[in-house]
């Protein structure tokens, strides 16, 4: 059960000494190496969103409000959701495939036979790395989206830079950014447990590994999108 996996992992994360080497390795892989795709996703989405907003707002002479809309949308929705989807595709799939292969080649049994609990060795370090990496990647996506929007609207569309900035700062509240980061924390939680659970449940050879990996990505993406909706309702209430 995925819930008991999460429970066990959190318990171990708080009660056992961390495996630093494994943790740092996963942090490098989940965090550092995902920066390019998350940055590209954030930057281009910020730009395209700014173009669309600018065209509409230009009709009603609200050019300089573009920055506020882009920043708030990036911080609350686009940044966390995009980062989570990109990480689900890149990291989630890799984690499921790796653990699934270990399962079907009896490497997980070998770990157990050596008195090492698979949750301690395989899941906890990845969980910790994900909980740190995804919020940071999200912050990066948000930042690059806002930058992309600014550069595009100000330097290519000719919006007035000081009004653009002033409106953006006026209408983007700290709690909007907090809203996005809380979401990313929750998404990280979903992604890593879905990926590890699907990996460790793998049966039936290499076909099974393919099936698990496929399911992990699909389930993760759907879970992110659906939980995003409910989190938005909840967080707008809580942070109001």
């Amino acid at each position, binding site marked *: 059960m995925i819930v008991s996996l999460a429970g066990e992992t959190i318990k171990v994360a708080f009660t056992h000494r961390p495996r630093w080497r494994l943790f740092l390795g996963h942090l490098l892989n989940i965090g550092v190496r995902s920066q390019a795709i998350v940055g590209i996703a954030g930057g281009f989405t910020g730009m395209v969103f700014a173009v669309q907003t600018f065209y509409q707002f230009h009709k009603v002479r609200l050019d300089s409000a573009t920055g506020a809309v882009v920043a708030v949308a990036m911080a609350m929705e686009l940044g966390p959701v995009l980062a989570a989807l990109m990480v689900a595709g890149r990291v989630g799939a890799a984690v499921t495939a790796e653990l699934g292969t270990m399962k079907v080649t009896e490497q997980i049994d070998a770990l157990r*036979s050596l008195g*090492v609990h698979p949750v301690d060795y395989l899941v906890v370090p990845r969980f910790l790395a994900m909980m740190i990496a995804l919020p940071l990647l999200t912050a990066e996506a948000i930042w690059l989206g806002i930058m992309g929007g600014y550069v595009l609207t100000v330097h290519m569309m000719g919006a007035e830079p000081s009004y653009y900035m002033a409106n953006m700062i006026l209408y983007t509240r700290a709690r909007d950014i907090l809203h996005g980061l809380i979401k990313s924390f929750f998404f990280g939680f979903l992604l890593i447990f879905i990926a590890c659970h699907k990996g460790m449940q793998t049966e039936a050879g290499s076909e099974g590994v393919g099936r698990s990996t496929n399911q992990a990505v699909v389930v993760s993406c759907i879970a992110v999108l659906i939980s995003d909706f409910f989190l938005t309702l909840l967080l707008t209430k809580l942070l109001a």
Partner: protein
Amino acid sequence: MIQVRGLKKRLRSQQVLNGLDIDLPDGHTVVIIGQSGTGKSVFLKHLIGLMRPDAGSIHVDGERVDPLREREWAPVRRKFGMLFQGAALFDSMRVFENVAFPLRERGGLTVEQIRERVMHALSLVDLDGSEDKYPAELSGGMRKRVGLARAIVGEPKYLLYDEPTTGLDPVTADTINELILRLRDSLRVTSIAVTHDMASAFKIGDRIVMLYGGKNYFEGTIEETKATDDPIVRQFITGQAEGPLTAKNRR
């Protein structure tokens, strides 16, 4: 001392183990034989809790282990070394790291001591010089021997070998037989070896147990096994295609 009583295990719709009773006395090597698919590997996995029985009991050194929970198994498992049928090496690690893994996990040794013991274990299985290779770069027989080195490096009290000589050339296979004998004689290791290699079985075994129909169908010393007139055992150890084992399958 390991005692197994009335062990039963159903996998999918198949009753793989159906009331198995075996005693594994300290300092002895028991060889388990039986046709492919009779549950030899499944039986070994029960001894270290990788599979849980549906019924029956397992005692290790007087402690009943079958009801233990996953985390409670860890100290019991550290008494064991297991060679998996498919070697089950950690493919993200080099040979050295694979063999060092049990020592590092247990702790209490310096880097230098670990290095020494790993290199010694590798030389016992004739793999000096391969420590920097990855499992994917090894032949099947080499992988098996790395698995063996990983099983013995912690000097466990009990060793479970799942087909230690399968896939090895006759000369290397005999090196492994000698190694198993040496571990028994010098360290008083208790071994349970699953094998299809009757030459190896007669060389390393103190007792032979044949699994058949989910039970320990036959049990005896080497002499008793060689002299038995039980048709099923005879057919198996002489390797005849015709006989009661195959007649049943053909029906």
